């Protein structure tokens, strides 16, 4: 059972991040610190995965949480879970940064072969349960190579689906349906409702 599967049946968890965000909206530093400690590994890990540069990743992670500090009142519980709101924000920031760096340098994309290898060297001990991580890894592994490649290029490398289509010399409709099928496969495998 994954953390979120378990957590989704546990009102306390969602309610808890919800409650923390409400306090953050009132500029409660303790609530902000608790929110950071509970989510930092997910945010920093994703940002690092996209940016692949420790300095940029720290800056961007800091930007993400400053945005949380300033805009916590924008969080709408009806639109999704707090963790989804946060990870969406973090991914947006990371992708914007990658695209502006790429535009600035005009260089060929530095990204090579698609892969979803996990950073085995540094694992977040806190908050993330190893069983949960293993399950997510297995679910990623259950996708087809073509689906995984799409997620890698679009989500972790920050390419648009048009760029993915150019990169793989596949038409746009094919890329869009691969992306959709990849997410559906993950969703089913992870039991996300």
């Amino acid at each position, binding site marked *: 059972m*994954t*953390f*979120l599967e378990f957590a989704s*049946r546990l*009102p*306390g*968890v969602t*309610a*808890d991040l919800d*409650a*923390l965000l*409400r*306090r953050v909206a*009132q500029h409660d530093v303790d*609530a*902000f*610190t*608790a929110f950071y*400690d509970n989510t*930092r*590994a*997910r945010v920093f*890990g994703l940002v690092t995965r996209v940016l692949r540069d420790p300095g940029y990743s*720290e800056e961007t992670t*800091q930007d993400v949480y400053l945005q949380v*500090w300033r805009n916590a009142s924008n969080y709408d519980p009806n639109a*999704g*879970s707090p963790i*989804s709101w946060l990870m*969406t924000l973090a*991914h947006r920031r990371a*992708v914007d940064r990658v695209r502006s760096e790429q535009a600035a340098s005009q260089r060929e994309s530095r990204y090579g072969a698609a892969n*979803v290898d*996990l*950073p085995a060297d*540094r694992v977040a001990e*806190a908050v*993330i*349960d190893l*069983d*949960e*991580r293993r399950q*997510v890894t297995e679910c*990623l592994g259950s996708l087809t190579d073509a689906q995984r490649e799409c997620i890698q290029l*679009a*989500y972790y490398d*920050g390419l*648009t689906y*048009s760029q*993915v*289509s*150019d990169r793989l010399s596949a038409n746009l409709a094919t890329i*869009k*349906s691969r*992306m959709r099928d990849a*997410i559906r496969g993950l*969703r089913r495998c*992870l039991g*996300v*409702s």
Partner: protein
Amino acid sequence: MSGGLVTEPTDSDLMTLATPYALHAVSQVEQDAIERQLADAPELVARAFTDEVRAVRETMAVVSAATAVDPPAQLRDRLLAAIDDHAPLPRLSPPQRRKWQSIALSAAAALIVGLIVVGIGWAIRPEPKPTTAEQIFTASDVRTVSGDIPTGGTATVVFSRERNAAVLVMNNVAPPEKGTVYQMWLVGADGAKSAGTMDAAAVAPSTTAVLPDLGSSKALAFTVEPGTGSTQPTTPIFAELPLT
């Protein structure tokens, strides 16, 4: 040629763009076009699009466990220093009215987090018997109520009717005067029933207590009582948390 959109997407195009949009895998121009289209789309289409985006993002939020890496500790310090520079809003001071429901307590939050971690460990690795606190936190009807104590500090109750129990957290509450205790009462239609007492040593700086039998009580009330407590309240209630 596989460039971006040159025209506004049709409704069915729009749906095929929900996943790329949710993954931030569209250009800024396309994103703007999608959002314009969405604003004008029939309600059903707009809702289907929003639902799909939401599902994709919830899924990727779960997937973020796979890439989690702890940031360097100094990032936390820098961040806390950075938010310190932003003029904090004045702390909510509740002189006129105490809004019990709206006040969450960081100590309680920390407790909740701690217990959730325990709860998860417990879910994955079955352990013989969950504690009362664990049972409360994993109950489907778990609720939290917080409020200020007029003389300073905060009280938070996390409770479950299903489990018929509560955890009380008192934080930074001033100790009772010498020769008196704080007494907790479960108040129901049939009057007040003692739920225990706290003396000066038990109160500061923070304390937690398990209240094992809520019965049909509607509120948890606090009074100051002489000596080691009373069988019925002898002074006016100075704080009350609704258990509804």
